[in-house]
């Protein structure tokens, strides 16, 4: 069984109906689609059981929703597993994973600041990048309308 198949099976069994589907480009890239409620369990599995490292989080503005991709690197296998989920643009929010994985601290704050996706439960959700007088409801990378 390939490492991707192993990983997908594990996530499917832990997440249950929060797991949606997966796709691969090659043996080094896997995209796993889940419902946003499953992200905390997903991070626990990847970090604790697969030794994954959070490389970064990419948010993509899709007009009515945001796609958010958590790029996890599993170094021993040379694999990037991107966990993809969506949140509606109105009152966009996700569960913070910083308490499980401290490395997410700055990354989540960056996404929050630039796209306006609120990370619920973040221990220090203050400003990271924008200047002190930047307006609260303006998000530099969010598309207007």
């Amino acid at each position: 069984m390939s490492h991707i198949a192993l990983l997908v099976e594990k996530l499917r069994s832990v997440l249950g109906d929060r797991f949606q589907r997966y796709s691969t480009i090659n043996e080094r890239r896997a995209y796993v689609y889940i419902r946003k409620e499953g992200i905390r369990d997903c991070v626990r599995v990847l970090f604790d059981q697969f030794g994954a490292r959070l490389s970064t989080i990419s948010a993509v503005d899709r007009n009515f929703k945001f796609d958010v991709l958590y790029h996890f690197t599993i170094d021993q296998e040379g694999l990037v597993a991107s966990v993809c989920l969506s949140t509606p643009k109105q009152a966009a929010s996700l569960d913070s994973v910083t308490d499980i994985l401290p490395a997410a601290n700055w990354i989540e704050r960056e996404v929050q600041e630039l796209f306006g996706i609120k990370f619920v439960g973040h221990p220090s959700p203050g400003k990271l990048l924008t200047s002190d007088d930047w307006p609260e409801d303006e998000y530099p990378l969010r598309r207007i309308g």
Partner: protein
Amino acid sequence: MSIEATLPIGPYHPALKEPEFFKLFLDGEKVVDVAIRLGYTHRGIEYLAQRKTYNEIPFLVERICGICSNVHPMCFCQAVEEAWGLQVPDRARYIRTIVGELERIHSHLLWAGVAAHIIGYDTLFMHFWRHREPVCEIFEVLTGNRQNYAMNCIGGVRRDIDPTKHKALILETLSQIRPSLVRLEKAVTEDPVVRARIENIGVLSKDQARKLCVVGPVARASGLAIDVRKDEPYAAYKEVGVDVKVLTEGDVLSRTLVRLLEALESIEIIRRALDAIPQGPIRLEPKQIVPGDGIGKVEAPRGEDIHYVRSNGTDIPERVKIRAPSYMNVPSIAPQIKGASLADASLIIAAVDPCFCCTERIAIVDVKTKRESSVDFESLARSWRRKNKHR
């Protein structure tokens, strides 16, 4: 524990000449905590990249960092090549490897020089930079520039390496600087004064390193054997091989040693790559823009660099996400600096080799209507324009 004083360092770091703000909380001479503030050099590069064509972006992302200026375009091109399903010609892969490793040598020597300067050993600083200079001169001959080489393009590289003239120059220069590097490494490890200054300072444990997901020499000095060149070989690293240098102590000395050993290993990699480089084309002309996702990963001198590109079939990407290595490494300063003496703070901050240009690249353009609220800078600019209207 009562905090007796807070000491602001920055936004201009005293040693690195780059803006980032560290507020140190002190109890006497001891550092109790640190608060880090970013945001002083945002240039809106992700924003800009989503408004430029694929051919323009390599030149844009090359300007993210002046020191590792080969890394970002190579990483971006790899991401696009993955999204479009392009196979880069073999010769181009080798050229990317050679340029990447030359860059690693000059970057590590630059850092070692700065570190020597911080501990007050300026002779060593000058020696390190003296041996960095010939590497920059190689770049000038190979690419026309000492920095910002513009070597990468989607589908390959823009300039070839001459098999006789350039090869001879590179090999001769490397054989000149190699013995000096070995000698300088000894100057660091065997000098008791230097050792006393950097040993057991700024320790980052393996567990902390893993939790903070640090990358590059910072991770490898704390016992994490991770290196993109080995774990997920790109360019020609599968063929030429890499000996990953890992130490376990996690202090500033280990980070210094990892970097110096890596510079020596880079010399060997370049020699192997020059021996094995195949003949053939250096660039593939992309035929069409394919929609899809691509992830590019490169081991920069400071660690893993990752670019994510989403292509929607037009000539402008839907999303370009850039995460430079320092973004993961700078937060690891906090656990390292707690409990340290104030005198070591500057060195500890510098020892993760923080590249602030890399950390701060997103955001802040546009929004004309809101400009009135962002006061001083704009009013300053307005008054300047008024004053110079008649020129």
